[in-house]
């Protein structure tokens, strides 16, 4: 797919060209949204809205990268949804992510684990992934977004600054705080962590004690 070509066509209103872009980026967008929102349906809704918004505004896309631009829309939509959720405590993110019993957890879906994953990997992806996801959900939204972009999706600081419109220094400091906070959270269930990690925490506690 020639992305530039598809963008140009989409800018002229070609929906099928735009949908090619959607297909190329929907997994990324969805993963970003899912990790930020912590809920599969909400993430899909966010992405759908984001793509719709992107199509409507794609003419405004000039020189910047489509990917960054799109993810920016997605993260902004996530912010909006999180704010909305906060106003409705019954469906708060915490509630959605803090209980193992709530609905479908994509991390738990067996079909998501690729066939060639080792048993250890699978175990990790079930229990630990849910634990990590809950940990991410405890972070304030601005830290969460940056952590997801950086550590889950592997965006560079520069890209994150571009996506979020936040200065590089702020990206660094927020990420630093987010990691420290997540680390604290992960330590609450040391039994889920890899042995290596557990040992580090253990040493740390001993020393502190």
């Amino acid at each position, binding site marked *: 797919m020639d992305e530039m070509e598809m963008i140009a066509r989409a800018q002229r209103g070609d929906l099928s060209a735009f949908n090619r872009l959607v297909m190329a980026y929907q997994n990324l967008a*969805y993963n970003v949204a899912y990790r930020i929102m912590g809920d599969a349906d909400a993430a899909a809704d966010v992405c759908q809205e984001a793509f719709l918004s992107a*199509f409507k505004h794609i003419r405004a896309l000039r020189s910047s990268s489509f990917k960054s631009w799109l993810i920016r829309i997605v993260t902004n939509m996530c912010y909006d949804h999180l704010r909305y959720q906060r106003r409705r405590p019954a469906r708060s993110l915490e509630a959605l992510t803090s209980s193992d019993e709530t609905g479908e957890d*994509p991390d738990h879906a067996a079909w998501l684990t690729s066939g060639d994953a080792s048993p250890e990997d699978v175990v990790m992806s079930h229990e630990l992934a849910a634990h*990590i996801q809950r940990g991410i959900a405890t972070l304030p939204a601005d830290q969460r977004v940056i952590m997801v972009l950086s550590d*889950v999706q592997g965006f560079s600081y520069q890209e994150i600054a571009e996506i979020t419109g936040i200065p590089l220094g702020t990206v660094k400091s927020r990420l630093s705080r987010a990691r420290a906070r997540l680390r604290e959270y992960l330590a609450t269930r040391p039994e889920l962590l890899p042995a290596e990690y557990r040992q*580090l925490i253990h040493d*740390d506690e001993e020393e502190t004690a």
Partner: protein
Amino acid sequence: MMMKKKQPEIDHQLHQYVSQLLSAYLDGQVNSRERYLVESHLAVCSTCRRDLEVLRQTVRLLHQLPAVVPPRPLTLRPEQIAPASPPVWRWLFGVPGLATGVVTLMCVMALASILLYNHFVRRGDGMPVALAPAMRSMAVTPAPEVTIPGGVTAEVTPTPAPAEAHDVVELPAETAVPTLVLPAPPGQADVSLVPPATPTPELAAEGISSPPPTLPATQQEGFITPPPPPQQTEAPVEARAVEETRAQRAEATVPPEPEPSPTTPPDAVAMALPPATETPAAPFAAAVKAPEGQARETVTPATPPEEVGALTEPSPTALLAAEAPAIPPATETPAAPIAAEAEVPQEQPAEPAAPTAPLQVEETAQGTPGVSVAEPTATPTRIPIPVRDLRLTIKPGLIHIEGQLPLPPGQPIMAELWREGERLTWAIPETQHGKVQEEGRFELELKAQPDHPDADLFRIEPARYELRIVPLEFEAPVEARIPFDTFPPATKQP
């Protein structure tokens, strides 16, 4: 913990400073001065060394989080974006296409009337451009569930052959059924069961009673190589339907820029298409499935009427059909042949027969109206097994299929996509594999390889396809075949 220093001589402030830099240091996002400070401090501070390691592990865990897959495709459907596009834009894009494609006076006339019609319809409800008759009927029809078949997102649910009443085929209301020509029901096994010659309802009924759903002979012949003469008449009908729907579809999907198709721009075709004899809604009905009434009567033997009815109900067809008669614009009538020529040359032979179609239609409608069941290409080596509760959804770049197979849970299966008897390398290989679940249930979602030119099966030349579900490492050489095609469905006569 971080505060705690092993070596009292370590500068507390430096320790604080460095511990805040560790995260960026881990990512190589520190300048040379910071790097120096961090590294020299790490050399003497075991706490920071451990913190750095914990940080590294934390990031690694995050990075190892499994990728999740969207629960549904996120591509946009035309109707989702309709309100946003100004009518002017549509006008602009529709007209040039017509100009190139329409050569005959008929077409021009049809165009004028259709454009006018559409103009109002479009203004009225903001529907995407829908020039084809069926579309118009939809616009008029009160059935809100019906969405225009966006070529892009066109979701097709296989219509169960009437015979297969017990096979549950769901017609999602929102699906753009018309585009999809329905898949043949469960395996060939059924086919063989059915006496080849007669497509009579009774036969169908018989077929039904046997576990594997059977398609009425008529149906199959309609699309494939129809042997017996009685059914031949149907072929024409179907063929026409095909063109129509195809045109509609093209209409719905056509991007602003004229399609590359040299001969006739889709929209042009759509204009020309409206077949005189058939009601606009017909294609839809065909696509969807046997109209409830008929389906029940003829097909029922095996399945309780209610079930059939239930299956059919959600589909807009009934409504459409009902409304259809009122809609057909007179002008369009003559256009049908033309359209046929322009759009699907291969179907032409069928055209002449069209007049007779009405007579036969009844039969067809009973059988598998919308489902043009192609007779699966024979591969003698594998024994066909039936699929039940079949549900097939086809979207650009994606084929979703689920159903029930007579295979044990845990049995690995693989789907192959065939076109006109040739196996395609279309899907990303991993997406072709799956496992049978409880009670023989299975679900596969084939995704087209990135940038595959044929990703959207509806954007390319209509053809007969087959999905073959093959159990891997199975004791017997069996396979389930799900034929479908991308020809527009047969029409039901008013």
